[in-house]
């Protein structure tokens, strides 16, 4: 793969192709990192609420749990490309434009937030009840149990889940590219696919693969520190 990329790069025009790819990579990184950061905050808060409002949990509330469930279950099955288009008026109202990387951040953030909410909830539910029991027996307060024990014990799997979601965001930015979001996906589609420039397409695919590998490697590394061998 590396040799394919290396020989492909030889065919790239250093005056036009390379700056174009670099700019697209920058746009992709911008979309991925901003939407990932925002979605992590929103998604984790939602996920913790989904968990904590379950029956028997510290913020047990049927109403809140059902409402959150409906929100998450409504947004999750919508195919991303449809969400992207459907949100156009909202995006225009909030960000001032509906095209370009900045505009793509809103639908990316919304889709990723509900995804993170659900995986975070299941990571928290999977925490051994014995852990909670021991914390209760030691006299820990409900909030301390939630953050000091449940969330803390779930950190390793949570980081792996966030890694999974960040790879899904990289994937989704390509879709955002299809409707003018910019980034590597946009470039691969317009120059590579529609103008039959196979070289640029292969280079972009290799860059995307490298990006995903890097994200997964970093995620695994961080998670391992929390999984306590």
């Amino acid at each position, binding site marked *: 793969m590396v040799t394919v990329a290396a020989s492909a790069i030889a065919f790239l025009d250093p005056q036009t192709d390379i700056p174009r790819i670099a700019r697209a990579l920058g746009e992709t990184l911008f979309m991925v990192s901003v939407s990932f950061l925002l979605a992590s905050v929103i998604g984790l808060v939602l996920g913790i609420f989904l968990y904590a409002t379950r029956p028997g949990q510290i913020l047990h509330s049927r109403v809140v749990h059902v409402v959150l469930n409906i929100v998450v279950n409504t947004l999750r099955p919508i195919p991303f490309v449809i969400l992207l288009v459907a949100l156009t008026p909202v995006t225009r109202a909030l960000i001032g434009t509906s095209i370009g990387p900045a505009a793509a951040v809103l639908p990316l953030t919304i889709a990723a937030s509900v995804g993170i909410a659900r995986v975070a909830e299941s990571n928290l539910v999977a925490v*051994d009840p*014995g*852990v909670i*029991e*021991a*914390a*209760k*027996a*030691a*006299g*820990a*307060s409900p909030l*301390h149990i939630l953050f000091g*024990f449940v969330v*803390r*014990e779930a*950190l*390793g799997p949570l980081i792996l889940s966030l890694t999974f979601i960040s790879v899904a965001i990289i994937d989704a930015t390509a879709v955002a590219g299809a409707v003018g979001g910019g980034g590597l996906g946009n470039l691969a589609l317009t120059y590579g696919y529609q103008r039959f420039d196979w070289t640029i397409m292969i280079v972009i695919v290799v860059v995307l693969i490298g990006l995903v590998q890097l994200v997964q490697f970093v995620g695994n590394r961080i998670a391992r520190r*929390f999984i*306590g*061998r």
Partner: protein
Amino acid sequence: MRVLDDVDVSVAAGEIYGLIGRSGAGKSTLLRTINGLETPTSGSVVLDGVDVHALPPKDLRTLRHGIGMVFQQFNLWNSRTVFGNVATPLKIAGWKDDAIAPRVAELLDFVGLGGKAFAHPRQLSGGQKQRVGIARAIAGRPSVLLADEATSALDPQTTTEIVDLLRSVNRELGITIVVVTHEMDVIASLADRVSILSDGKVVESGDIHQILASPRHPVTAGLVGAYTGTSLTDGEKSSLRAQFPGRRISVVVDAATSGGPVLSRLARLHGVDFAIIQGGVSRVKDKPYGQLSLELHGDDAAIERFVAELSQTATVTTW
């Protein structure tokens, strides 16, 4: 569903109290009412004069600083080191950092894990995990330690080590221990007094030696018999009846009967012979305990006199 009903148990300060019964008897539920992990629908749990279930949540949490608990599956916090596991209850109880470190070191030495402070729970064996569990439970110098099937996930050798450790927690640190288990050998070697639970009720309570020597309730007799390997099932009785047609008795052997040559002296005195047809004797907390089944030979009047006199020093049943 009623898990517990009409339960009246009182544990004295400084003793080791056993709660034993089969799975589903309600013994763990009863234990968990002591630190408020379970709330009874009616009735009360009084600890040092405080009604545990009348306390507001905040006071209940404070009360829990003074009650340690160890679990069957250890329930260690895997995201924390051994040190972190033992230090956390102290932090919760508001100890200062500079007091925590020496206290944790002292506790790890006490449980025999001096070199393991920075190990992760996943790197430890079951026995080591339970040692951490015990160190964590007694960290804040509780007055009571609740042991919920603390040895049930361990092999026999490790069980003995953990039982010894629990005994030194009680004898050396003066911590009252309530032990829940389905293993009679744990109760027999550890507890001072015991309650037997069956279907959510306490069917029998008393001193461990008295319970072992003369179980009154069938559930107790079953547990004791299974433990000593000396109890007779109905099937065994009928096959022994066919094999030994004479007069058959079972004698409970305890300090009174094995302290001297009681059986042979009485047999000689009354001119009776006996064959040992079943049974065994073992030692429980340095006292003999067991049961022997005998077939008696001799004339009927002599056998009657022998049984009558033996009954004055031992528990004898004819079958």
